[in-house]
């Protein structure tokens, strides 16, 4: 299955939770915000929200800025 991850196509074997997706990407969940199909996912819901085929996911963090 395929998702759109930060604007790019991304292959996943099967649907998985946001927690599992972040682990797979080696991203510390405490440092990011996640948007799933344009809905912001609260951190305490990362384990229950499932990313499926065709979904759009945005993962953002803080970078240098003024």
């Amino acid at each position, binding site marked *: 299955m395929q998702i759109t*991850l*930060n*604007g*790019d196509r*991304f292959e996943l074997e099967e649907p998985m939770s946001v927690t599992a997706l972040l682990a797979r*990407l*080696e*991203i*510390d969940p405490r*440092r*990011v*915000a*996640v*948007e799933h199909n344009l809905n*912001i*996912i*609260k*951190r305490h819901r990362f384990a229950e929200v499932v990313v499926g085929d065709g979904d759009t996911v*945005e*993962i*953002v*963090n*803080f*970078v*240098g*800025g*003024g």
Partner: protein
Amino acid sequence: MTDTPFVIAGRTFTSRLIVGTGKYSSHAVMTQAHEASGADMVTVAVRRVNISDRTRESLLDYIDTSRMFILPNTAGCYTADEAIRTARLGREAGLSEWVKLEVIGDERTLFPDNEALIEATRVLVKEGFIVLPYTNDDPIACRKLEDAGAAAVMPLGAPIGSGLGIQNVNNIRIIREFLRVPLIVDAGVGTASDAALAMELGADAVLMNTAIAGAEDPVAMADAMRHAVIAGRLAYRAGRIPRKMYASASSPVEGMVGR
């Protein structure tokens, strides 16, 4: 002379200098500059995580978040919707309701789109955000932002990153009179005297990034800015002398030898 504390939305800051985290040659230099600046609030941007390269260090590893308050911005947003979306993401990433709200209207000048900015301010305030909008040095726009619920209003001194200093001194003075919420001069500072001038005009604080990060010695410039903001604030509170056309002698005119 004891100063009144610098308070935004009930939160007290020890420093009246707010600094950015962009454009530094390295994270280590940034950390040193932050220390030298004495600031206890820093701005950050909200951007997509680089998925293909996970080796990059996290900015937050270089910010002492026990001492520094993190203010996420919506830099690079050109519509109210974009800025609102970014603000919401920033809130989740940082777990605070505060946002430096930017809605840019033009790529070359990075001047704000005031209409969209006021609209976005209204929406975010309703959602419980503490909104600090970056705006033009336009007193009417500043007043409208305060009416829309902004916790502080942040007019530019000059275009972002230009280093031109305060271009419209009189407007900043008028904005000072118009506002009840804190006035923060944001953008345009080039060197220490610009920061001091902003404070002398009555700004409650100054926000800058490039002036420090882009200096030949960012750590020394951060130190200079710290002093400038303190000096400018003291001078504002001390009450300057009126400007006069002609001289007025400092030494007594009586008792001159041989007269």
